[in-house]
């Protein structure tokens, strides 16, 4: 660990910065909310509690973006996938690498100077049980503390000034198949974290720890009896019906005790509405892969849940994909905006689901207002029944035991995975990185032959229509279902988006091309080839009055299909590499932070 030798806080302190030094954490939440409204900084992983990934900064514009150039860069010291983003608080940048989860505080005053570096001691088996590369999605900040999840399930509270550990607590146990990849969210006096590992039949949950001490305040499971779900059978609303969920609504959707390995993990992005005092997050696939092994709706896997962050009590729940047979995790971000619904201004939540539908819900009640396909090739369901909230299935595309079902769209990676979309309050559109990939699927079954366990599994993914477009970056209106413009890419667009008041949207491609796009026309105005493919999310901030844009490059994760050695032919072996077969022609592994500025 390095001791800081430069002054930490910006001398020309903003009011908010001064406030940070004041005692009393009760106000931490309001401060964080206020801090996030200062677009000179980037203090919440998704930019603000609403998950907009928007900044009002407007120095960089369509006219001058051609002059954007690298200001400084640094290695993250880790080769694996970087799905996160830096934070900027005052004159310091904080970010976390993929496993082994180095956390850095970097000076903006002396760009790239490492003020401190934290390297957690980890359970050496954690990487072995992580399903989809040992990625990380970033740190959280509140009240002078950096909160960082390590893969082995420990949540660390680090003093933002020197990186010293204020407390640590284990919220996930790799021995049970549980790992931790998501970015925490601090709300009021609690730090909220989820869990990864549905491949292991992990019984998914969300944990709230006291921000000052680490003590567990509540834990709410995704499947099981009401008391474990923190559901009130008479008060928690089923968004699909508008009525209370009733007693043991999850238990009755499973056969026997299967809910105990029910999955419903919680590894995505979280948002929060301070006015309603509700936390929003999604749950992942149900446990055990083979749907024929788990009859029922498997509640509340594949659902959006709204909870009181202080008590964990659920206000409402909405299940997108009952009885999942495709691995369409419901963990994607829930972006909070106002929407014009039939001429009325409604407080909504917009969720681009893996299943290919863009759900717009009334975020007060979970009521379904709209669910339009955001990729025309989606064929597992014809549409979402607005009366029941349920998908109207295409029976030919339901996966079955021992049967290879061909041409299912989207693939298990979804029309969009965790790569977060951005919202622009000026155009009122969403800017969405998507996957344009379909699959042939044979469901899973865990078996044993004398002395050796194994699984039967085959998934073959390929660009839709066996074409050469694997990803599309779209400007989308979820209420009308209209795509305003789209940029086709060879591979899945697995990096997040950033919108700015300057009229630009930034994102990176799997091949490592970092782009600035005219938010109105969709024209790529500027690009830069990063050292490695991009699956991270851009941010923007100012230092000494000048606007900067930062991105983590470092390909990996489930996105980097085919990057493995010599996997160049879609037909090779079991043939599951078609989607990104030639990615290795374009990029290589390796984490780098890149910061850009105008002259």
């Amino acid at each position, binding site marked *: 660990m390095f001791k800081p030798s430069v002054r930490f806080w910006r001398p020309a302190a903003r009011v908010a910065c001064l406030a940070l030094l004041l005692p009393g954490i009760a106000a931490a939440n309001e401060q964080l909310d206020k801090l996030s409204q200062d677009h000179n900084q980037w203090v919440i992983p998704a930019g603000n509690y609403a998950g907009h990934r928007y900044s009002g900064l407007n120095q960089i514009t369509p006219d001058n973006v051609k002059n954007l150039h690298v200001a400084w860069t640094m290695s993250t010291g880790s080769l694996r996938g970087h799905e996160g983003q830096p934070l900027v608080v005052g004159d310091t940048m904080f970010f976390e690498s993929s496993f*082994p989860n180095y956390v850095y505080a970097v000076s903006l005053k002396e760009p790239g100077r490492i003020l401190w570096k934290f390297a957690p001691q980890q359970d050496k088996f954690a990487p072995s049980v992580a399903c989809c590369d040992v990625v990380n999605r970033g740190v959280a900040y509140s009240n002078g503390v950096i909160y960082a999840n390590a893969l082995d399930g420990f949540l660390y509270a680090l003093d933002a000034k020197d990186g010293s550990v204020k407390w640590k607590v284990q919220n996930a146990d790799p021995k049970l*198949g549980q790992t931790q990849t998501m970015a925490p969210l601090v709300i009021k006096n609690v730090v909220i974290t989820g869990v990864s590992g549905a491949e292991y039949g992990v019984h998914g949950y969300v944990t709230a720890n006291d921000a000052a001490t680490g003590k567990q305040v509540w834990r709410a499971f995704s499947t099981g009896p009401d008391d474990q779900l923190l559901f009130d059978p008479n008060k928690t609303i089923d968004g699909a019906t508008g009525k209370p969920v009733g007693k043991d609504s999850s238990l009755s959707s499973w056969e026997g005790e299967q809910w105990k390995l029910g999955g419903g993990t919680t590894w995505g992005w979280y948002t929060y509405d301070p006015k309603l005092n509700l936390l929003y997050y999604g749950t992942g696939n149900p446990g055990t892969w083979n749907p024929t092994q788990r009859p029922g709706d498997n509640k509340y896997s594949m659902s959006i849940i709204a909870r009181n962050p202080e008590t964990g009590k659920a206000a409402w729940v909405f299940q997108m994909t009952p009885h999942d047979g495709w691995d369409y995790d419901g963990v994607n971000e829930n972006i909070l905006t106002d929407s014009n619904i039939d001429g009325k201004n409604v407080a909504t939540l917009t969720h681009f689901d893996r299943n290919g539908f863009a759900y717009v819900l009334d975020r007060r009640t979970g009521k379904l207002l709209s669910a339009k396909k955001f990729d025309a090739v989606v064929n597992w369901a014809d549409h979402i029944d607005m009366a029941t909230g349920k998908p109207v299935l295409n029976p030919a595309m339901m996966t079955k035991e021992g049967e290879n079902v061909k041409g299912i769209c989207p693939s298990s990676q979804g029309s969009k995975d965790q790569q977060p979309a951005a919202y622009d309050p000026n155009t009122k559109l969403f800017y969405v990185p998507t996957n344009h990939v379909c699959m042939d699927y044979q469901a899973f079954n865990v078996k044993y032959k004398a*002395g050796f366990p194994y699984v039967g599994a085959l998934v073959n993914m390929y660009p839709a229509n066996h074409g050469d477009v694997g990803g599309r970056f779209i400007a989308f209106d979820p209420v009308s279902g209209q795509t305003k413009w789209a940029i086709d890419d060879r591979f899945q667009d697995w990096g997040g988006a950033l919108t700015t008041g300057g009229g630009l949207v930034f994102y990176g491609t799997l091949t490592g091309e970092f782009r600035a796009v005219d938010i109105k026309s969709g024209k790529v105005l500027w690009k830069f080839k990063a050292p490695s493919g991009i699956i991270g999310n851009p941010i923007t901030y100012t230092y000494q009055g000048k606007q900067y844009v930062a991105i983590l490059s470092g390909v990996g994760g489930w996105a980097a299909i085919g*990057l493995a050695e010599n996997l160049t032919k879609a037909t090779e072996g079991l043939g599951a590499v078609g989607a990104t077969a030639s990615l290795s022609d374009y990029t290589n592994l390796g984490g780098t932070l890149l910061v850009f500025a105008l002259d």
Partner: protein
Amino acid sequence: MSKLYISTATCLLIALAGALPAHAAGTLKVCADPDYLPYSNRAGQGFENAVAETVAKAMGAKLEYVWADMRGHGGFPEYLSRNLDSGKCDVVMSMPYGNDEELTTDPYYVSSYVFVFKKDKGYNIENMNSPDLRKLKLGFEGDTPVEAGLQLRGLVTSAKSFDISESSGQSPRSTLDAVQNGQIDVMITWQPAIGAFMHDYPELTTVALPNTRATGSPEMYSFPMSMAVRKGDDALRNKLNNVIKQQKSALTGVLHQHGVQLFGDGDSASASQMANL
């Protein structure tokens, strides 16, 4: 082939379901192989013997073995149908968690497939994509996730398949001998199959295979392992779950003594040591 076995098992199960004997009070009837170390043998030297003893003791039950060759005619599926499904015995000690052919208990350990190679060779092998694997003579247990992983990478035709699980009387030691005598450079096999023998091969080392989705579909190389009872025998399953809960450290201890490597074993490594994992 395996489909045929399963349907045989299911038919037998249906035929006998009405006439199954209740468990004899105070007796735990364990199906076990009389000659398949490190899992079990008649002399009680295997880790499954030790686990069975621990469980029976905790239940206050008399341990009774029903011996049968797991690798005989019809393989493991027929073994299950002739012994467990037919009611001759009531529990098998190893079954991956979540298997739907029998009723599994909660998992009592998680272990992994491993690369086994000579320490002094200095290979850089971390996962199935490690370039060194392409240059080396590989061995693997057939019909496992390892075979699928090798096939996917175009490595299977040049590798040697060891079919321990289908070769009655063959010891998993033979896979270690093959590494020891240089017949193959890297053996890829289930750690519990070879853990008990590793102390006889001090020149060899193991590296666990990480699970991955690097090629699209999930590749699973580590498995939570359970005991299994007949479908419908929830009473015994619940008793076993209680034992697994209460005897957690005893069971872990027994597995360790028999060289089974579990997830969470050992002290945490420093981040710098792990950077290459």
